[in-house]
C-alpha cells in the first residue's frame, strides 16, 4: 500500500482514538450540571482524573500528525477553521485545569465546576463545528485558505456541533454507567435513555443533509459502488442502536459504552466514505497534501514501533484504575 494511504489511515486512527478516549471525559463535563454537587460530582470526576490528559494527547497527535504527514492540509484547514479551533482550545484550557483546581480551592469549587462544564461543552461543540465546516467545503486558492472569517458557520456545522455534544454526552453517561455506583450510576442510566434518541436524531439529520452539501457526497452514496454501502449502513446503525437501547435496560454495565462507541465508529466510517480520497473535501486529495517520501518513512518507523507500545502502557494505566469508582459512602 502506498505510504500516503498508510498515513491517511494512521491519522484517521488517531482521530478515532481521540474520539474514543476523550469523548467520554468531555461528555462527563457536559453532564456535570445535571450531577448533584458533592459525592456524585466527585465520583464522576474521579472516574476520569487519572486518564484525562493521556486521552487528550491523541488530539495533539492528530494535529501534529496532520502537520507532519499532510502539511498542506494543516496549512489550509487551520486558518480556515481559526475561530472554532481557538474556541475549542480555550475550552480545553478551562476544563483541563478544573481537574486540579476544583480540589485546591473548595471555596470557589462551583466556579471551577462551571468552567469544567462550559469548557467541555464549548470544546465539544467546536469540534463538531470544525468537522461540519470541513465537510461543508473550504475555499482554497493556490496553496492557502482564501475564504472569510465566518465561512465556518453554517446550519450544517451547527448541526454537526450539536450532534457531537449529544454524542459525547451519551459516551459520558455510558462511561458513568460502567464506572460509577449507586445514585450516580442510576442517574447516568436515566441520562443515557434521553440522550440515545437525541443522538440518533442528530446523526439521522446530518446523514440526510450531507448528500446535499457537496455533489461529490451524493455521487459517492447514491451511485454504484457506493450504493453497496448505502443500503446496509442504516441497517447496521439501527441494529446497534436497538442493542444499545436494550443494554440500557438490562445489559451488563460495560455494554452501553461499547455500543455507543460502535455508533461513533459507524459514523466515522460513513464520514471516511464521503470524503475519500480527499483531505479537504472537493479541493485537496491526500496525495496533493502529502509530505515527501522521506518524511513519511521517518515517521512511519516511529509510529509502527511506538503506537503499539503506547497502546500497551495506556491499557495498563486503565487496568490499574479498573473497576467501579466508589466513594466512602459505598464501601
Amino acid at each position, binding site marked *: 500500500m502506498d505510504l500516503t494511504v498508510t498515513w491517511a489511515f494512521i491519522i484517521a486512527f488517531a482521530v478515532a482514538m481521540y474520539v474514543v478516549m476523550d469523548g467520554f471525559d468531555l461528555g462527563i463535563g457536559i453532564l456535570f450540571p445535571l450531577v448533584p454537587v458533592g459525592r456524585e460530582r466527585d*465520583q464522576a470526576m*474521579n*472516574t476520569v*482524573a*487519572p*486518564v484525562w*490528559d*493521556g486521552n*487528550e*494527547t491523541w488530539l*495533539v*497527535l492528530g*494535529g*501534529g500528525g496532520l*502537520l*507532519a*504527514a499532510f*502539511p*498542506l492540509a*494543516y*496549512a*489550509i484547514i*487551520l*486558518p480556515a477553521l*481559526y*475561530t472554532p479551533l*481557538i474556541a475549542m*482550545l480555550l475550552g*480545553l*484550557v478551562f476544563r*483541563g*485545569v478544573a481537574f*486540579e*483546581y476544583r*480540589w*485546591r*480551592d*473548595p471555596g470557589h469549587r462551583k466556579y471551577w465546576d462551571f468552567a469544567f462544564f462550559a469548557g467541555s461543552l464549548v470544546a465539544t461543540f467546536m469540534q463538531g463545528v470544525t468537522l461540519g465546516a470541513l465537510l461543508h467545503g473550504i475555499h482554497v486558492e493556490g*496553496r*492557502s*485558505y482564501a475564504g472569510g*472569517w465566518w465561512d465556518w458557520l453554517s446550519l450544517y456545522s451547527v448541526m454537526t456541533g450539536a450532534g457531537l455534544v449529544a454524542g459525547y454526552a451519551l459516551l459520558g453517561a455510558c462511561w458513568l454507567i460502567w464506572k460509577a455506583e449507586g445514585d450516580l450510576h442510576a442517574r447516568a442510566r436515566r441520562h443515557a435513555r434521553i440522550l440515545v434518541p437525541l443522538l440518533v436524531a442528530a446523526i439521522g439529520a446530518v446523514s440526510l443533509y450531507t448528500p446535499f452539501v457537496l455533489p461529490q457526497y451524493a455521487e459517492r452514496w447514491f451511485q454504484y459502488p457506493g450504493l453497496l454501502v448505502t443500503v446496509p449502513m442504516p441497517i447496521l446503525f439501527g441494529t446497534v442502536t436497538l442493542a444499545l437501547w436494550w443494554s440500557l435496560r438490562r445489559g451488563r454495565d460495560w455494554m452501553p459504552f461499547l455500543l455507543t462507541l460502535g455508533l461513533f465508529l459507524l459514523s466515522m466510517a460513513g464520514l471516511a466514505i464521503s470524503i475519500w480520497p480527499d483531505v479537504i473535501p472537493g479541493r485537496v486529495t491526500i496525495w496533493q497534501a502529502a509530505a*515527501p517520501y*522521506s*518524511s513519511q518513512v521517518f*515517521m512511519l518507523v516511529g*509510529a509502527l514501533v*511506538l*503506537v503499539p507500545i*503506547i497502546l500497551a*502502557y*495506556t491499557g495498563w*494505566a486503565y487496568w*490499574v*484504575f479498573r473497576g467501579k*469508582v*466508589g*466513594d*466512602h459512602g459505598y*464501601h
Partner: protein
Amino acid sequence: MAVSETALLLARIQFAFTISFHFIFPALSIGLASYLAVLEGLWLKSGRSAYLNLFRYWLKIFAVVFAMGVVSGIVMSYQFGTNWSVFSDRAGPIIGPLMAYEVLTAFFLEAGFLGVMLFGMEKVGRRLHFTATLMVAIGTAISAFWILAANSWMQTPTGWAINDQGQFVPAGSWLDIIFNPSFPYRFTHTVIAAYLTTALAVGSVGAWHLLRGRATPEVRTMFSMAMWMAALVAPVQIFVGDQHGLNTLEHQPAKIMAMEGHFRSHPEGAPLILFGIPDSEAETVHGAVEIPRLGSLILKHDLDAPLAGLDTVPRADRPPVGIIFWSFRIMVGLGALMALLGLCSLIARVRKTLYDWRWLHHFALVMGPSGFVAVICGWVTTEVGRQPWVIYGLLRTRDAVSPIATPGVTGSLIAFVIVYFTVFAAGALYILKLMGHAPAAGEPDTPKGPIRSAGITPAPSMTRGEDG
C-alpha cells in the same frame, strides 16, 4: 489575501504571548519530575520518611503545574497552523515529523504514567510506582529533546533541500536535521536551565519555611538539596551559556551583534558594553558603559580580535536590538546572582550555618522566581534574535504568516490574554497556597484531592473526603 502589518504584528505578539506562558510550565515540570524521581529513589533506598513526605508535597504542586503545561501546550500545537500556515506548509515536512516524534515518544509517556504517578501508589506498589515516576521524568526530557531539535533547526537549518512546491524537505539523513549545529548547545543550556529554575523555586520554598521557624527535617532537606544544585549547576550553566554564545557567533553573528549592542565593527578589538540605551535608528548605544576589548576577549578569547558589527548586515536583515540587548543582560545578571547564591550556600555549609543564616534565607527567597525570569529572557533573546527570519536566512517571518485579518487575530489575542491571565493566575495562586504550608511529617499524598478508590482493595487510606 494580503496580510496587513497590524495583523502580522498581532500574530507575532500572540505567538510570543502563548509560548512565553507555556514555557514557564515545562521549565518547572522538567526539573520537578526529575526532582520527584530523585526523592522517591532516595526514599526507596534509605527508607527516610522525610523523602517520602517531600515527594508527596512536591507531587501535589507538580500536578497543578503539569495540568497548566498540558493545556497551554495543546494551544501551541495548533498555533503553528492558525497563525503561521505558510510556515506550516513550507517547513511541515521537516518540523512536523520532529513534533510528531515528540508526541509519540514523550507526551504519551508522560500522560500515560502520570495517572499512576499521581494516584497509583497503593495500587501498583512501590517499585512499579517508582518506574512510573521515572517514565514521567524521562518523558519530560525527551519532550525537550524533540522540541529543541525543531527550534534549533529553525535557528541553524541543515540537511534540507527545496522541492517543486517550495517546501523544505529532508535532503539526506534525518540526523543532519536533528543534530543541527546549535542543537547540542541549546538542548544542554535549556535543560540545565529547567533544573536550575526548579532548584531555585524549591530553595525559595525551603527558605520561606526556615525564615518562619519551621526547620523540620523535610524543610532542611529540600533547602539543602536546592542549594547544592545552585552551587554546582549555576557555574556549569554559565560555562554552557558561554559555549552556546560562541556557537551563535559562528552561525548567527547578527544575533550576537544585537545582544552585545555592537552597531559598528571593531577591527581593533571590541569593547564589552555593560549598560546603555541602544538606538537602532541612530545605530548607537547612548550612554554606554563599556570595558574596552573585553568583548573580543569573551567572544574570540583574544583582546585584539576584530569583531564585525551590525553595519555589516543589511538593515532589512537586522534583529531588533533594544529587546535582546536587555533580555540578554537580565539573563546573564540573574545567572551571576544564582552562582553567588550557590557560593554563599557553600560558605554557610563550611561555617555550619546553612539552616541559621537568615541573610542567606532571604537571598534564596527572593531568588525563587529568578529562574523563570532568566528562562523567559533567554528565550526572548534567542527567538527575537533570530528575527527577521523564522527559518534563519531562508524564510522571513513576514512571509510565513497565515492569511489572517486584523479583527480575527485581535479577537483571539484578547481571548488568550484574558483566559491565560485568569486561569494561570489562579493556578499560580494555588501553587503558592500549597507552598505556603510546610511539608508535614506524614504528608498525605493528595489532601483535599480526588478520591482514588477505584479497584479491588478500597482501603481507608484511599477513600479520602474533601477535608483530607
